[in-house]
């Protein structure tokens, strides 16, 4: 397989504000066609990272490289900026029509009138805005305004696109349809993307790499499953939540009843994945039951696996058990049942969970 080229490299990037270091990135690269989710708490430096790549913030030190060349002059910075589109949290539309808003990036680039017209129309249509072209940006709903800001960003046909929580404060269906539209264009055009998000399932669904930032530093950088399942430290674990996330392939699907192959085991789940689709199966620890005897005849749970307890950690009123069933699984048990079952590390048990407790998320391929 051909090694993808890096489009963007950061070297020793440091940013200070008021004498405090707010960003310190020894190295970071964005590769062609890659979709990176940037997660972390407020003030972790996510927006700062995007702004410093764009050259919109003064760097304390370090360098930004675009396609193997260091950005040193204002001209080269402008050249790179025009290859990147950025969507901020607020739509930040201009006080003119929807058409003019979508055309603004192209006008800035001095694109010809006819070309502007055809591109604006294309992207208005893609974001279901065609009948609003002449409407004033002041008369749009929140969802419509976001769509205009997305259309404006894609209209310049960028090589890279940065999203700084563009879907915050939107209702779930609107959010879903917007991310779907955006994801489709990104794949179709092979755009590399960085998405700042707080939504774990969004990160899983869209990205092929997750970067966790905290206190201005990268604390973990890996595939979505690696970050969610094997957080490098307590912070990441707490931040990404404690769900078990298993990568698998759909074997069959009969009326929403899916069988998913995970590490040589079949897991029953409810969902719309088609055979052959790659999916993540997310299972919350509180939905995993641990018992000593095989509960297969007593429970309605479809998924029952013999397991071994590999780790026990105290979580306040309950205990967190890490189980090995041929695939990793996390379970919460109360201190009472832990004592009643006389559990200990290395103990052989049965782990069971219902098919409805498995939350499948379609995995990004390519």
């Amino acid at each position, binding site marked *: 397989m051909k090694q993808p080229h890096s489009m963007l490299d950061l070297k020793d990037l440091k940013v200070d504000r008021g004498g405090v270091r707010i960003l310190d990135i020894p190295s970071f690269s964005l590769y062609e066609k890659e979709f990176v989710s940037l997660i972390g708490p407020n003030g972790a430096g996510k927006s700062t990272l995007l*702004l410093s790549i764009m050259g919109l913030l003064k760097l304390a030190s370090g360098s930004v490289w675009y396609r193997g060349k260091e950005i040193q002059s204002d001209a080269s910075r*402008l050249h790179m900026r025009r290859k990147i589109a950025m969507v901020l949290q607020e739509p930040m539309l201009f006080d003119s029509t929807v058409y003019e808003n979508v055309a603004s990036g192209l006008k*800035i680039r001095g694109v010809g009138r006819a070309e502007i017209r055809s591109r604006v129309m294309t992207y208005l249509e893609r974001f279901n805005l065609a009948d609003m072209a002449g409407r004033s940006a002041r008369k749009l709903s929140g969802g419509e305004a976001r769509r205009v800001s997305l259309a404006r960003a894609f209209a310049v046909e960028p090589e890279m696109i940065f999203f700084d929580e563009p879907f915050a404060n939107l209702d779930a269906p609107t959010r879903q349809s917007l991310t779907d539209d955006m994801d489709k264009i990104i794949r179709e055009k092979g755009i590399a993307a960085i998405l700042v998000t707080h939504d774990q399932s969004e990160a899983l669904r869209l990205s092929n790499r997750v970067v966790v930032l905290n206190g201005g530093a990268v604390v973990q950088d890996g595939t979505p499953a690696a970050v969610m399942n094997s957080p490098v430290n307590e912070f990441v674990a707490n931040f990404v939540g404690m769900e078990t996330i298993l990568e698998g392939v759909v074997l069959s699907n009969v009326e929403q009843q899916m069988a998913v192959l995970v590490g040589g085991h079949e897991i029953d789940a409810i969902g719309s994945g088609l055979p052959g689709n790659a999916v993540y199966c997310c299972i919350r620890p509180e939905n995993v039951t641990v018992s000593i005897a095989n509960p297969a005849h007593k429970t309605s749970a479809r998924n029952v696996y013999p397991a071994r307890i590999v780790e026990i950690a105290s979580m306040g009123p309950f205990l967190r058990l890490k189980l090995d069933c041929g695939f990793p699984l996390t379970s919460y048990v109360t201190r009472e049942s832990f004592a009643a079952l006389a559990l200990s590390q290395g103990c052989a048990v049965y782990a069971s969970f219902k098919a409805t407790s498995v939350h499948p998320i379609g995995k990004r391929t390519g």
Partner: protein
Amino acid sequence: MDLIIEGIVKAFQLLASLDPEVLGIAWLSLKVSGLATLVSLVIGISVGTMVALTSFPGKKILVSLVNTGMGLPPVVVGLFVSILLWRNGPLGFLELLYTPGAIIIAQSVIATPIVMGITIAAMQNLPANLRLQILALGATRFQLVWMLVKEARLPLMAGVMAGFGGVISEVGASIMVGGNVRGYTRVLTTATVMETGRGNFDVAIALSLILLLFCFVINYVLTHIQQRERPR
């Protein structure tokens, strides 16, 4: 009471008959104050935008000075412009004193801080991220400034209106540097002062009505502008 009613009736007769002297005075007022506003617009918006978009030591002091200038008493301006243009004054060689040009200079001095102050406020009131968004769209510095001015066009228009409203209704500076010369430097306000002094209330009321009409139009436009909202 009769005096007022009679005055108003006569005033309407004057206006209805399109009295050439009254119309001439109104036209000169519009011309002089319009040109002064144009000068203040060019200086006020360009300098105001620069001040708002850059940061430099002493910026706060400068902005405070500009804001103070927004309430500059016209007679003080009249005094200093008179001294400057006086025959033996530093700009006496221009021979501008008691000409419409002198009124334009004095009114520009009055209107410029008004336009500049409102420009600074308007530019600073734009959302901070708008600047980032425009730069992120790939704008050059020049394109950035142009797009920001376009975004602030309504409050800027309000500034221009306020500047025009300030100078068309001021009397102190006009009378001091213009001299209220009939058919030459006599504007609505100076004429009203004179006619009132002479007891020609009908003419004074007619002139005042025209001035009020100008003020109403200005405020109507301002109100309209202020009730618009920014897009999301």
